[in-house]
């Protein structure tokens, strides 16, 4: 059974000059134990799509289902990790991690052990009492990750989580996210990653949804059947990145309405 089904979703925003279409007819599934990446050029609606999936915003048309139920309000089964970390500067690391649990109405005696557990699994032990200003970008994003995982979401939504980090730090955190997702004793069941970095998507994901320029449409769904850890310098890896780059570049004339492959045509074997 699909965890999440995105069905024929359109999103447009009203402006003074009429409505602007952000995405059209987006359809895909997130399966159990999936690591799914969404890539596409800036402005294709990737981040908006994550917001729609979590229930922070409503589609203009189409629907989003979580375990066959329509997502009509903010889902407690999903948690988001942000590019900008989105931590509260006046709260300590522990308090930031506890924040989501408090919002869900957990009692204080249950919050503490839960916070400690997720501080430990993300490697934040030793920084419980630190404030975000004392932390490097990598440590801040670990706090973002711990806060999201502490609510034990079925799906972890990640919006460009590594793009504000220096390259070495990003390399380390990608490895840790993969480690957490592969650990059956820990949430989440599935990860949905939005990235503009095609190599990153292919390194991490089982499947990559390729979106076109605005209005975003699904150009292809590429299954990345390479064993992990993936060697970015291998020919097979290069073939995947080359294919996705080609799709996105060919997808350019989509504003003119076009000869693009229809939804799913370029699906990999």
């Amino acid at each position, binding site marked *: 059974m699909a965890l999440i089904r995105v069905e024929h979703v359109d999103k447009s925003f009203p402006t003074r000059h009429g409505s602007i279409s952000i995405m059209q007819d987006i359809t895909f599934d997130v399966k159990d134990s999936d690591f799914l990446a969404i890539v596409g050029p800036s402005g294709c609606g990737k981040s908006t799509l994550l917001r729609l999936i979590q229930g922070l915003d409503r589609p203009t048309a189409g629907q989003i289902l979580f375990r066959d139920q329509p997502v009509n309000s903010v889902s407690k089964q999903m948690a988001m990790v942000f590019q900008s970390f989105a931590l509260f500067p006046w709260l300590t690391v522990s308090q930031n991690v506890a924040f989501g649990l408090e919002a869900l109405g957990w009692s204080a005696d249950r919050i503490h052990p839960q916070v400690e557990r997720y501080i*430990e*699994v*993300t*490697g934040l*032990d*030793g*920084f419980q*009492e*630190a*404030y975000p200003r*004392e932390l*490097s970008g*990598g*440590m801040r994003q670990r706090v973002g990750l711990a806060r999201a995982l502490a609510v034990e979401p079925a799906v972890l939504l990640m919006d460009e989580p590594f793009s504000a980090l*220096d*390259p*070495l*730090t*990003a*390399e*380390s*955190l*990608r*490895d*840790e996210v993969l*480690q957490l997702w592969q*650990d059956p004793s820990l949430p989440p069941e599935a990860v949905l990653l939005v990235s503009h970095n095609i190599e990153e998507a292919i390194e991490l994901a089982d499947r990559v949804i390729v979106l076109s320029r605005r209005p975003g449409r699904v150009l292809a769904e590429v299954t990345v059947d390479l064993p992990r*850890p*993936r*060697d*970015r*310098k291998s020919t097979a890896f290069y073939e995947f990145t080359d294919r996705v780059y080609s799709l996105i570049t060919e997808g350019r004339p989509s504003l003119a309405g076009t000869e693009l492959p229809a939804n799913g045509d370029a699906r990999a074997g």
Partner: protein
Amino acid sequence: MPTTYPKSSPTEMMGLLVLLKGHKGSEDVARLADDLDLEIDEILPALEYAEVLQLVTVSDGRATFTDLGKRFVAASIRERKAILRDQLKRTTLFRTLMRALESAPDHSLSDEQLSQIVSFTTAQADEAVQNIVNWGRYAELFRYDSDERRLVARRRPTSNRSPASKPPPPGASASTLGTGGLTPHAPGSSGRSAEKETAAVAIS
């Protein structure tokens, strides 16, 4: 030769090790930098830590995992921290710091005292202090109280001030993480590791 603790974080060093793992454990440093579109000098600080902590060896511009380095990248986040903790404790600087913390009356050191200790073992104390605090915190060797601006021992050693408290059992670890099996050197090699400790501070 000046001795410094260059600016880099545990996370950056781990990123470099993950990258090296992707190159099957041995690669030219220039190639590693190129992989991330970085200049060589942008990855050197992280590489120096990896070398000092005996996770890689560097020879003829090529970085190669030690056995411990291989174990490190294959390990979980928690196990990696335990290895870092053990390896940092082998360096003269951290050994000195831990001794100072244990012997300090309230098992804590002010920023100023910390700077003094750091200046005994490295050349650029002021820049290095923050960096060193970060490594020790990540490896759970000590806490840092940013309101009081003090380094604080995580585990209070046997103290005269609280006679009621029992001393920790032999081999008690600073945390619940099991460090058994992660000791990089066989018993009896202490003489050799003492030499390495000396080498460890002399990061050129």
